[in-house]
Every structure is written in structure tokens, then in C-alpha cells.
């Protein structure tokens, strides 16, 4: 067991408490307000919940390690869109025509590589120029989006491959393909961050960059790897999602960065770095998806949804803080 596991579990406790609260609320409210005869906590519905959490959730795992590292990546939405375009476009490239359905893994690989490269570019700029990651990725959020539009103008890029769709819609042991990916990625990032030297160094760098430098950790390459990881995961998210939907609009993935960051912070990661966990992020992602789903379930209209989501974000934060106060003895700062 890694150090401080108990205190970490307690600190990310708020999000789980909140998830329970959401489930209870929407189940009860759903009885009165929903059209549907089906309960909110229907098993199928919960399976869907997991599946629908995947696009944001997979990226959020990458954001967790980047934020623990003391950085941020605002360009994930654009990376997501580029990877999707590469995936769908390359399915139709003449050079792959002879491959038959074997083009699918090739296209996947291409898309994932693109994600890694885009992420690594961000990381390289952060490393070499020393410009804050916020600015670098705010810039590439725009720049990468420009690249998206270069592919196909304003038009969507589409290629519906039913083999791919069937794979993406398949269920294995009851769970959807997307869910499996989400779970595997969550486990992978959890493993990376708690068990490996790379992960522990990520905490050290985010916590005290100077100390990490003094201790001889190669901070620059380390951060670049993490940016490559989030690029990879943004692309993986695109691969999983667009295999099913088969068409990408140049605007897709917009605002994903905000949702992803929200999920990560709700899950207990510090925006200043040094603390956070994949499990907490998983909770944050589920909480957001539950909220969206639940509000739809009880039939709230758009302005209400906006209002409620906003207030609830703040409420979770408040709850979290209340759970974490150490009591009266605390220093009042």
C-alpha cells in the first residue's frame, strides 16, 4: 500500500458522498418528474453511464497526471478532434486500400501517434521555452483547432465503417467497449501514479519543482512525457468515440478542456500540482456525467441545467472543504 492512502481516500471522500447524493436525489426526483417508468438507477442505465463517461473520462486521466505535475493542458479538445480526423480520414486512404478491415488497427495507430506527437509538441515547448503550460496550451488550443480546419475546411470528416461501429457498440461481460477502455485507462494511470517511479516523480515535481530539480530529477523530459501521455489519451478517447460515431465536425471537442479540468479538480486534484489521484478523478467524471444524465432524466430545460450545474459544482467544493477542515485547533490562515 502506498503511503498516506487513508488520508487520500478521506480527502477524495467528498466526491463519492456526492455521487451517492446524486443517485438518491435523481432516483427520488425521477419518480415524480420523469416521463419514464424506468428507475434512474436501472442497471442498464448505470452501464450506459459508464460508457457515456468514457470520452471525458479517458482524457481526464491524462489531465490528472499533467495537473499533479503542476501543469495544465487546454488543448485536449483540439487534439481530440485532430486524432478523430486522422482516424476517419486514414480509413479511406488509397495506400491502405489493400488492407481490407486491417486498415482499422493501422488507422488507430496513426491517430494515437498523432495524439502523442501533438502532446509532445506542447511538452517540448513548455520544456524548452519555459513558458507556462497554461499559455502554451491555450495557444495550441487555438493553433491545433486551426489545423483541424485545414484538413477539410468547415466540413465534417466522415467514414462510417460498420465493422468498427459494431466493435465499438459491442458489450463484453456486460460492459461496453468504451467502458472497458475507460476502466483500463483508469487502472493504468492509477498504477502509473501510485506504483511507478515516473508517477511518484510527477508528484514531487508538482509539489516542489525546485526540490525536484535539486534532487536531480530531469524535470523537462518528465513533463514532456506527461504531455505526450495526455495527448495519447485524448487521441484514445477520440479513437474510442469516433469508431462508433464515424464522423467528426471540426468543432468537436470544444469545451472538453473545461469539463475535463472540472472533473479532475472535483476529484480532488490540486490545480497547483502535487496532489491528486486517478481514482478521485474517476469519481469526478462519474459525478459530472450523473449530473448531466440526471438533469435530463427529470426533464430540466437548458437554462435550469446551466444554473443547476453551476451551483452544484460550487456545492461539491463546499462539501469537500467541510469534510477536510481539521477542527477548531487549525491555524486561521
Amino acid at each position, binding site marked *: 500500500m502506498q503511503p498516506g492512502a487513508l488520508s487520500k481516500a478521506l480527502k477524495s471522500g467528498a466526491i463519492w458522498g456526492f455521487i451517492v447524493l446524486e443517485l438518491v436525489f435523481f432516483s427520488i426526483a425521477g419518480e415524480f418528474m420523469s416521463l419514464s417508468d424506468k428507475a434512474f438507477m436501472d442497471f442498464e442505465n448505470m452501464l450506459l453511464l459508464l460508457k*457515456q463517461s468514457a470520452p471525458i473520462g479517458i482524457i481526464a486521466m491524462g489531465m490528472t497526471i499533467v495537473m499533479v505535475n503542476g501543469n495544465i493542458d487546454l488543448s485536449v479538445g483540439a487534439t481530440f478532434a485532430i486524432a478523430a480526423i486522422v482516424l476517419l480520414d486514414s480509413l479511406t486512404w488509397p495506400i491502405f486500400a489493400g488492407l481490407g478491415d486491417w486498415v482499422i488497427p493501422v488507422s488507430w495507430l496513426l491517430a494515437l501517434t498523432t495524439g502523442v506527437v501533438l502532446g509532445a509538441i506542447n511538452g517540448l515547448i513548455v520544456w524548452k521555452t519555459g513558458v507556462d503550460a497554461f499559455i502554451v496550451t491555450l495557444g495550441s488550443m487555438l493553433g491545433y483547432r486551426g489545423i483541424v480546419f485545414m484538413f477539410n475546411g468547415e*466540413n465534417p470528416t466522415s467514414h462510417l465503417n460498420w465493422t468498427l461501429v459494431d466493435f465499438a457498440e459491442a458489450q463484453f461481460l456486460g460492459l461496453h467497449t468504451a467502458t472497458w477502455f475507460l476502466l483500463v485507462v483508469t487502472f493504468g494511470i492509477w498504477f502509473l501514479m501510485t506504483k511507478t517511479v515516473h508517477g511518484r516523480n510527477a508528484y514531487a515535481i508538482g509539489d516542489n519543482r525546485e526540490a525536484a530539480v535539486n534532487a536531480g530529477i530531469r524535470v523537462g523530459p518528465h513533463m514532456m512525457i506527461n504531455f505526450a501521455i495526455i495527448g495519447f489519451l485524448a487521441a484514445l478517447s477520440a479513437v474510442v468515440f469516433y469508431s462508433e*460515431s464515424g*464522423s467528426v465536425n471540426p*468543432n468537436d471537442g470544444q469545451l472538453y478542456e473545461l469539463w475535463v479540468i472540472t472533473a479532475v479538480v472535483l476529484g480532488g486534484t490540486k490545480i497547483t500540482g502535487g496532489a491528486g489521484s486517478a481514482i478521485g478523478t474517476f469519481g469526478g467524471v462519474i459525478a459530472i456525467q450523473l449530473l448531466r444524465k440526471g438533469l435530463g432524466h427529470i426533464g430540466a430545460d437548458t437554462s435550469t441545467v446551466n444554473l443547476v450545474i453551476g451551483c452544484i459544482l460550487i456545492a461539491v467544493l463546499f462539501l469537500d472543504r467541510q469534510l477536510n477542515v481539521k477542527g477548531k485547533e487549525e491555524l486561521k490562515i
Partner: protein
Amino acid sequence: ETMKIGITQNNVGVDSYQTTYEQAFIAAAEANDNVETVVLDAGGDVARQIAQVEDLIQQEVDAIIIWPTNGEAVIPAVRKAHQADIPVIVTNSNIAEAGFDFVASFSGPDNITQGARSAEIMCDKFKDMGIESEAQIVHITGQPGYTTAIERAKGFEDRLPEVCPDVTIVETQPGDWNREKSQQVMEAFLVKYDDIDGVYAGDDNMGVGALNAAKAAGREGIIFVGATNFAVGYEAMAAGEYWGSIYQSPVDDAEAALKTAIDVLNGEEVPFLNYFDTPKITQDNMGEYDKPVF
């Protein structure tokens, strides 16, 4: 037995057309005792829209109305609804042909025709003014990547050379459906081009933004043509500053979608492509139309 109808809209709140659409839809549904609705908004996010379709299937609604965020990406989701024997009605902008098999009907405006009609309005006016041989226009499009924006631009750009071959479009830039952005774009155009005879904007919000820029710069005699006649556009027309637009009511749009869904559920025969008419409106004939409510 009440009908449960679910709708997933594109991006409510992005402009007043969509918001008015949502309200008109809710109002129309409430006026009908046989109908109950679940109103969802995808916020422009295709993933969220697909999730919403899945949720509606899971909730076992009787029919699903979808205003696609992406006419192709939603096809697999629509297929799922189809497989679950839930009829799907597409509203406002159509889905791609590959999905037609899974859809009961489409109801909405024809954006390509709208663009073409705007070109005709513009051309006719130039002919009146006698400048059809040398007129230069600038084009302000909607948010890049939106089907409506793409289709209107396409309709306009294809039709204009047919009716007015000598009119040139000197530059096209997006105004993002946003009056302010459009005003900035127009300000730059005015600095850059000394001779601008016409402006075509993808909707009246942007058209009025461009108009504001021209007024502030003291440039007169520019012909402004838009689409989706908003109240601001209508007023500017009444003031003689804005030439014409396309009359398109979100209320009609919403009511048509609901009616189509009800018809389908009642087993009535509906045409597959159910366009509602969107006529030209200019300073000349505006008296025939009420001021838009949005």
C-alpha cells in the same frame, strides 16, 4: 394513451433562434394534452447528443426528435433507436444520406435554398441599382463547422454566379453567429476595402453587426442581406438601413417538428423531406410579415 416524445437539440442558448425554438416546442407540447416531452440540449457536443439518444432509448420514449450536432456522427445512435423500434424525426438540419434508412422523416428549412435566395435578393437589388456588372461584396459566415453555416454559404456562393456573374465576393470570414465578432470583422473589411457594395451575412445578428460597423465608419450605400430574419434585422429594414433577409420562424420550425412526430406516431403518411417554406423578405415586401419575436 399519451405520447412520450424526446427531443435532443443542438445547442440551445447559442443564439436566440435555438432558444426560441425550445420554448416554442415546449409550449406546443403543453398545448397538446396527448403529448409529454423530454427536452434535452446537447450543448453542441456530439458525444453528449449520442448519450442523450441512448438515454431516450433507455427511457423508452415513443419517438425521438433530433436536431443533429453532426449529420453523420449521430447515425449509429439513430440506428440504435431504429433498432429499438423508436421512430426518429430529424429537425432543422438533416442527417446524412447514409442514415435515411433509420429515420422516419425530416422537418425543417432548406438552408441551401435559403443561401440561394439571399444571392437572388442581393443580385436583384444590384440590378435595380445598375451596379450588377462591377459590384463587390464581402461574406460573413456563421460559426465554422455548423451545418447551417456551411449550407447557407454553399447555397449563396453557388447561386450568385448564376444570377449575377460579374459580382465578386472579395473576401469571406466567419462571424461565429455573433454580432460583436461580425462587427469586428466588418471593421477590418472597411479598412481594407474602399469599395464594398454588399454584405451577405449568414444570419441577421451578424448582418446587423456589420451594419453597425458601417454606420460607425460613416460608409453609406452598402446593401446588407442576411438570413434568419431576427427582430433586429426586421427593425433595421424598417429603418431603411438593411435590405433583405430570409424569413424563418423558429416557432414554425418547432411546431413542424412536433407535428411530424405526432403524425408519425399516429401512423399517418408523412413526406420524408418535410421542408417548411422560408420566403424572401426585403424592405419592399416586409409589410406582409410580422416582426419576428426573437
